[in-house]
């Protein structure tokens, strides 16, 4: 169904491949997706990233056809597919729990889609063999799914979707059931397949490492709203709002008050330090808020990445601007980095990560001076209802 021989030769039309226009999804009283617009380019690896309940899976299921949007259009190569049932859409899904058919062997599982599309038998056999080679599972054609490990079932689920040559491959947290090592292997494998096949991948995950490792672009979602779209580096280095800043990577958020804005810098006062920042913008707490410029007297949140923190044993004199004195509460040696949890003042917990190379390991209980650069301080609205990373309040 999903593909005919014609599909593989479908030329790039210049149209954006998959276009989601004003899609809204309401379940009862609960709005899962709020008027969402998104364009997926042909051949792109796009990740939908967000905490559980953010609407990413609902969006994927609407593309697959398992859910119908309450409003809006989903265009695939320029054609609205909303009215098409799942089995008539040229997309295939790799499911979270693989969902291989337990009563069929591996070859029959993979051939299932091709049979529905009435592909001639010799071609089916040929394509099943090819895709088994592609996922390096040639020797497993005659086995039953129950005889395979989780990672092997994962590969077969991938093969079963890819063999149909879908215009878009949808992946619904396909690796969440795998252990860490296997997951990292599969990430590389998936990236390799994507590069080789040039198929459009839409990948749903709550795991930012996974999204950062594989994606061309990441769509960060929260509360049914797109918070930011961009490359991994872009989202990490330049979060548009407090949610993204806290969700991607670790972040120290410190409540602060603006005490002065001068040429090119703003001064912030926190409970235990005076900060200077080169950022005069106040970014919103989430995508539904609005950005602005800092004004004196405003209560905000200052944010500094743990790896931007410098940690040194406490010096004689009190630290000045963009520094603070604290006590190491816990130390974790992570191999390449040392991670400190440092308590500043009464109970401001600051996370700091310093390279393991060239830095001595400071024991828990050591008094230390933290310091950072003005350009590493970002400023966000403090707004209720947006969770931040649990570290660094």
């Amino acid at each position: 169904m999903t593909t005919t021989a014609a599909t593989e030769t479908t030329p790039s039309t210049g149209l954006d491949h998959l276009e989601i226009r004003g899609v809204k999804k309401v379940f009862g009283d609960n709005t899962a997706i709020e008027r969402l617009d998104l364009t997926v380019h042909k051949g792109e690896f796009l990740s939908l990233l967000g905490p559980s309940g953010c609407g990413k899976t609902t969006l994927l299921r609407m593309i697959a056809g398992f859910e119908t949007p309450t409003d809006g259009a989903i265009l695939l190569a320029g054609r609205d597919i909303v009215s098409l049932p799942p089995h008539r859409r040229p997309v295939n899904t790799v499911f979270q729990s693989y969902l291989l058919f337990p009563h069929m062997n591996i070859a029959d599982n993979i051939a299932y889609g091709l049979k529905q599309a009435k592909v001639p038998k010799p071609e089916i056999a040929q394509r099943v063999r090819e895709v088994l080679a592609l996922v390096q599972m040639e020797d497993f054609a005659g086995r039953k799914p129950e005889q395979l490990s989780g990672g092997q079932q994962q590969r077969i689920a991938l093969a079963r979707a890819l063999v149909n040559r879908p215009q878009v491959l949808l992946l619904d947290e396909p690796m969440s059931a795998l252990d860490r090592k296997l997951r990292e292997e599969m990430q590389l494998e998936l990236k390799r397949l994507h590069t080789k096949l040039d198929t459009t991948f839409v990948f749903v995950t709550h795991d930012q490492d996974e999204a950062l490792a594989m994606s061309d672009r990441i769509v960060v979602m929260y509360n049914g709203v797109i918070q930011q779209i961009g490359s991994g580096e872009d989202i990490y280095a330049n979060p548009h709002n407090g949610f993204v800043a806290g969700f991607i990577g670790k972040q120290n958020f410190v409540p602060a008050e603006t005490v002065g804005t001068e040429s090119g810098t703003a001064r912030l006062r926190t409970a235990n330090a005076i900060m200077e920042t080169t950022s005069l913008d106040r970014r919103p707490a989430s995508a539904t808020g609005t950005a602005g410029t800092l004004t004196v007297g405003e209560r905000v949140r200052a944010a500094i990445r743990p790896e931007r923190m410098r940690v040194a044993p406490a010096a004689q004199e009190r630290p000045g601007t963009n520094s603070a004195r604290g006590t190491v509460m816990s130390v974790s040696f992570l191999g390449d980095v040392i991670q400190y949890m440092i308590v500043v003042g009464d109970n401001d917990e600051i996370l700091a990560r310093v390279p393991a190379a060239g830095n001595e390991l400071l024991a828990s209980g050591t008094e230390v001076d933290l310091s950072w650069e003005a350009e590493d301080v970002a400023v966000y609205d403090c707004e209720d209802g947006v969770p931040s990373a649990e570290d660094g309040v």
Partner: protein
Amino acid sequence: MSTQAARPTPPVNRSANTGQTKEKEKRPGGLSSRFFGASAMSFPTWAYALFFFVIPVALVIFYSFGYKPDQFTAIATDHLSFDRYPEAMSASFVSTFFATLRISLFGTFLCLIIALPFAYWLAIKVSPARRSLALALVMVPFWTNFLVRTLGWQIMLSPDGFLSQWMQGLGILDGPLDILYTRSAVQIGVVYNYLPLMILPLFVAIDASGQKLREASYDLGAGKVKTFLRVTLPMAMPGVVSGCLLVFIPLNGDYVTATVLGGASGSMVGQLIANQFNTAQNWAVGAAMAMILIVSTLVVVGLGFTLLKLGQTITARLNSVPLKDGRA
């Protein structure tokens, strides 16, 4: 039965303590005490099967070799022979036997094709909140006595019953409904009586086959019918098999339905057997008839299983992909 009792005895754990095993094996009664322990624990199961299945069936087998000595004695076993079997296979018994088989097979088939869409609807379309209500409604007839329910059908199917009057009133029938005390009435009655026994295992099997797998099937391009035939039904096959067994076996031995609705022209083997035991007081011939029924039921079930396996093998062959290599 003994196999069931013996099964729980765990294998001697040689791998764990090779050094001590020899000493343990020497200890008298090591294995047998374990055997008796397991037997004691499974007592309710084997006692039930022994007293309500093994002994009664053994008695029937034993009686079938006996004879009726005189008018006032039902059974004598001082002289054993196979003579009752030819005696039981009278022309009327044989014709009733095949009529019974036809009613049972057709009744099982009717139950299956009625129950299948219903169970599918119940398992897939009905919301979980409503499902228990629907299941309770399926079970409601069981709260009433089997005989009373069947008598209800006698009233309904009688020529001056309300069904007959309605059908005449609507112009479907010219004269009164002439169906009571025929095989058709028995057929309707058995389907009604045994339908829940088909619905329940089918519902459980379809419910367990999983909505997620159906989604996977839709995703791969199969429509609703294809998904049902290629995914839901094959996965619900154990339910189909147990439903057919649950309906066919008791239906084959049923005599209440036939007595109430069949009259003289719609009799079933069960009635003939009951007559031998109750009216004719000839337990030996009755037991021989019962044995013929039991064995033939087993043969039919065995044939059914063989056909099913054959069918599954053939469909698997037809549907599988002929890969030259890797088909291990």
